């Protein structure tokens, strides 16, 4: 077999384009396994061990105030393993050098008690339970504001300014994604988690011997719903707001959504790549063996077995798999590290490091080799199904029949060359179908990836250019009369001001209830508007209420109707309100009313508690600074500024993301189309040479050769759109949390871009094959028999 081995080396060199293109797909498959699946496993592992070590609770409930004495009743609930009570409230902070206002979520800690959801200290220590004005802050807040051990800042607790000193920096499993209530993405500069000794915190907030949040850990096998029911019954007299499990815990939800997304893409994308690898290796090896059927017949005549001969050709595939694996492991591991590092920016883990399962790489390699082996053996078996003597003779012309198009009566519209193309596609339906699927997946991956960007882009655009259009948003320290509007408008930098009132209520519909805030605005107000997911504005009614779809769903409302509203402030009236409209929005869970109507509902004085302001260009930061120092103003924030920060991050991420997407998907398209064209050339070189002799130009012959791949690409693109559309839809449904849904709409540009990128890849592959076609020596082809 030595001379045959030389031949193999020569053939490999001759087919280096194919070896390389397959190696690239193998490499990408392994890269996606290592990066996407690896990221998923790393996150999953880090989360599980953090949850484990910190005794992450299973159930939480908030309430107004309950004495510690009811603790034993909670402990007695069947299925409860451990109970942790807390004191918790929001307060404003004053930080040196910080524009606008900063809020802190204060929570109690007691180093002497085994808590649930324990903090992990990054530096310093926990404050003692009676240690005044000593706090631990969360790591992201510390980093964003340059606050370290020994630094001080002010907090306004219960109306009193306190001078607080940082004694430690920590992370909490309950805030792996530290998000201020009502926000959609974390802003660590303006939102911090502050932990203080339990007893001092209780003393400062009239919570001595009491708590307003409880967390439970359940025994294995306990029924969560039953425990929550029992807990709700106990807490009801104490203003219990309803218990909830992990699936409704914000940090867990976000992390879970991210994990689900990684799990889905980390399974789907590598599976697609492996399928393409399997298909290509099978196809290319079958063809390689087919071109050498005469050599194989000779070997068989000498008595070699199919397996021996198959193994011989398989080495060609092993080279591609080996090269691909090496590159894939190196680049994939690097990419995995990059992705995991990226996650560290968003999620806070005590110990998140990149890890990957060798088993997955092994699976990828085994699948590649198996499919190559099937192709090689299939080819060898086909080549040797004839007796050796017959196989040494040239192959009879392939059998063809009129294609389906012609039988459908399109015949007379087709030129002979068009018929050649169609019949060649139809003669190998499985191969054509798989090629089309490969190209379709390349399109689909682009659609899916671009969709994620489109969706976020769209959501942010809607939120910040349609819904919240103010430069600055003010929250008052105390309710103020409506006349405050004129006062704000008189500020020299302010061009527009609109006041609003926000009233906390419990909405009740039948046996369902949900807490929410009703926002009251004036009818003509324009800085903030109610806009649905399609960008349509919903007019505020002069009577009645507009509800977010999410709230309506919680209350079991699917159209206009009456609900009870229990006002949770002032004289706490309970009244019926008409829900006149439901808005399909995807951020938050809000209720809107006309200001006057809200005053009538809530009773009390006609006061407002905030304003939205537009200022002259360039004056925003100065105005924010100035407002933050006013004692009547509790909070100053800027949606516009948030949007600008977001845009910056998005644009960077977008470029990188698009680069990888285009790269990954192009590799599939390139490899499928290149190998398809290459094999077509080797199968039909003789046909093409005949056409040249008959007077067809190089151009015409090239068009004929590539129309087959072109047609496959053409058919594959809409299939890819559909696939991508469906995959995006699946992704949206995997990611619904209380505070947001991903809008499902795929931009036309995404379809155009995905098609264009794939067509470009197809054209590039064709150009490479075209070079080979141009070098074809027509006479020598025609002199030989096939």
């Amino acid at each position, binding site marked *: 077999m030595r001379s045959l081995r030389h031949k193999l080396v020569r053939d490999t060199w001759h087919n280096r384009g194919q070896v390389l293109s397959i190696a690239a797909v193998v490499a990408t498959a392994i890269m996606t396994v290592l990066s996407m699946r690896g990221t998923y496993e790393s996150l999953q592992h880090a989360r599980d061990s953090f949850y484990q070590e910190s005794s992450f609770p299973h159930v939480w409930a908030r309430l107004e105030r309950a004495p510690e004495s009811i603790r034993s009743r909670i402990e007695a609930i069947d299925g409860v393993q451990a109970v942790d009570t807390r004191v918790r409230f929001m307060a404003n902070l004053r930080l040196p050098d910080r524009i606008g206002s900063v809020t802190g979520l204060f929570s109690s800690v007691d180093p002497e008690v085994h808590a649930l959801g324990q903090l992990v200290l990054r530096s310093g220590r926990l404050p003692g339970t009676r240690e005044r004005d000593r706090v631990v802050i969360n790591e992201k807040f510390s980093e964003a504001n340059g606050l370290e051990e020994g630094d001080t800042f002010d907090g306004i607790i219960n109306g009193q300014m306190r001078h607080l000193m940082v004694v430690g920096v920590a992370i909490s499993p309950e805030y792996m994604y530290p998000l201020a209530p009502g926000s959609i993405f974390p802003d660590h500069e303006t939102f911090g988690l502050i932990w203080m000794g339990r007893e001092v915190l209780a003393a400062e907030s009239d919570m001595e011997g009491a708590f307003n949040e409880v967390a439970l850990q359940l025994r294995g096998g306990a029924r969560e719903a039953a425990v929550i029911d029992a807990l709700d019954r106990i807490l009801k007299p104490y203003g219990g707001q309803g218990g909830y499990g992990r699936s409704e815990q914000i940090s867990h939800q976000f992390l879970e959504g991210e994990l689900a997304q990684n799990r889905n893409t980390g399974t789907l994308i590598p599976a697609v790549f492996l399928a393409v690898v399997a298909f290509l290796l099978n196809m290319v090896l079958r063809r390689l063996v087919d071109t050498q059927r005469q050599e194989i017949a000779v070997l068989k005549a000498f008595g070699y077995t199919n397996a021996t001969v198959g193994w011989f050709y398989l080495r060609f595939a092993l080279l591609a798999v080996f090269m691909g694996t090496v590159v894939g492991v190196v680049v994939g591991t690097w990419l995995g590290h990059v992705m995991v590092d990226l996650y560290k920016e968003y999620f806070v883990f005590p110990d998140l490091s990149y890890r990957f399962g060798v088993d997955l790489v092994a699976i990828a390699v085994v699948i590649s080799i198996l499919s190559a082996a099937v192709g090689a053996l299939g080819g060898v078996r086909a080549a040797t199904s004839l007796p050796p003597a017959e196989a040494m003779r040239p192959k009879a012309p*392939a059998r063809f029949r009129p294609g389906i198009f012609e039988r459908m009566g399109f015949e007379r519209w087709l030129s002979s060359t068009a*018929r050649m193309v169609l019949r060649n596609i139809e003669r190998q339906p499985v191969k054509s179908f798989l090629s089309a699927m490969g190209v379709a997946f390349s399109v689909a991956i682009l659609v899916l990836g671009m969709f994620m960007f489109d969706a976020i882009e769209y959501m942010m655009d809607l939120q910040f250019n349609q819904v919240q259009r103010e430069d600055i948003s003010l929250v008052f320290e105390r309710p103020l009369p409506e006349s405050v509007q004129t006062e704000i408008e008189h500020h020299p930098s302010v061009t527009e001001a609109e006041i609003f009132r926000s009233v906390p209520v419990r909405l009740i519909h039948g046996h369902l209830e949900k807490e929410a805030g009703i926002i009251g605005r004036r009818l003509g107000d324009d800085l903030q508007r109610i806009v649905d997911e399609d960008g349509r504005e919903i007019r505020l009614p002069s009577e009645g209420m507009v509800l977010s779809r999410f709230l309506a769903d919680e209350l079991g409302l699917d159209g206009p109707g009456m609900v009870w509203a229990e006002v949770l402030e002032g004289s706490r009236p309970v009244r019926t309100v008409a829900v006149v409209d439901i808005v399909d929005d995807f951020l938050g869970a809000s209720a809107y009313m006309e200001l006057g109507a809200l005053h009538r509902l809530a009773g009390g004085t006609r006061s407002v508690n905030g304003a939205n302001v537009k200022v002259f260009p360039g004056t925003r930061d100065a105005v924010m600074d100035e407002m933050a120092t006013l004692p009547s103003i509790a909070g100053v924030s800027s949606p516009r500024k948030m949007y600008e920060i977001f845009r910056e991050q998005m644009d960077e991420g977008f470029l990188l993301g698009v680069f990888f997407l285009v790269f990954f998907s192009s590799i599939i398209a390139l490899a499928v189309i290149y190998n398809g064209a290459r094999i077509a050339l080797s199968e039909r070189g003789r046909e093409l040479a005949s056409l040249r002799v008959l007077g067809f130009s190089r151009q015409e012959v090239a068009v004929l050769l590539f129309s087959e791949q072109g047609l496959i690409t053409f058919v594959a693109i809409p299939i890819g759109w559909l696939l991508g559309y469906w995959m995006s839809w699946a992704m949206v449904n995997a990611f619904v949390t209380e505070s947001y849904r991903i809008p499902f709409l795929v931009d036309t540009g995404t379809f155009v871009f995905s098609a264009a990128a794939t067509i470009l890849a197809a054209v590039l592959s064709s150009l490479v094959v075209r070079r080979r076609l141009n070098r074809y020596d027509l*006479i020598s082809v025609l*002199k030989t028999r096939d």
Partner: protein
Amino acid sequence: MERHHIFRARGLTKMYDMGEVRVEALRNVDFDLYEGELLVLLGASGSGKSTLLNILGGLDAPTEGTVWYRDRELDTTDEDALTDYRRHHVGFVFQFYNLIPSLTARENVALVTEISDDPMRPDEALDLVGLANRLDHFPAQLSGGEQQRVAIARAVAKRPQVLLCDEPTGALDLETGRIVLRALERVNTELKTAIAVITHNAAIAGMGDRIVRMSSGQIASDEPNPDRVPINNISW
């Protein structure tokens, strides 16, 4: 009667550079082909027959020398001009039929008629070679002789001035070979197409108007053949 040239070749030399060895496939060959004649090119294997025909047909370029097609000099370096020349003026028939396996007999002919200026109808061309009843058969459903006749029909359908045939019966047995030669003869007499047939088989030579012998890349003899032998009397 003045005879018009189809081809006039002067001083044709073709050299193949094979590393150390140089093969001289043609050495200073002068060659003429006239309108309407049936010429047989005879010679041992390797004597340069195919090389000469390929150069005349615009498939290959000579190392030296000039070819005139009628009164036009062939520019063998201009790929587009050669393509155009093959498309409209010459027909080829090879030993291996080189039909397109995915097209029926009729479609194989149509392939050419679709791109030429004043072609026959495909069924007309197939009728000429006696295949009127095989129009919708694919190559795999035809015998070797039938495939070769389809190739001839395909070559003549564009009404070329000249048909170049390189061992058209080389792969066929006697009886089918005769049928193929008869088809060529019919093309020559009915359409007045000039034909050059290559063979290394001296028995076939009798059917030609003129017999040119080649040996070692040169013309060894060039004789008219006043008594064309009927094809039925040819045997090998």
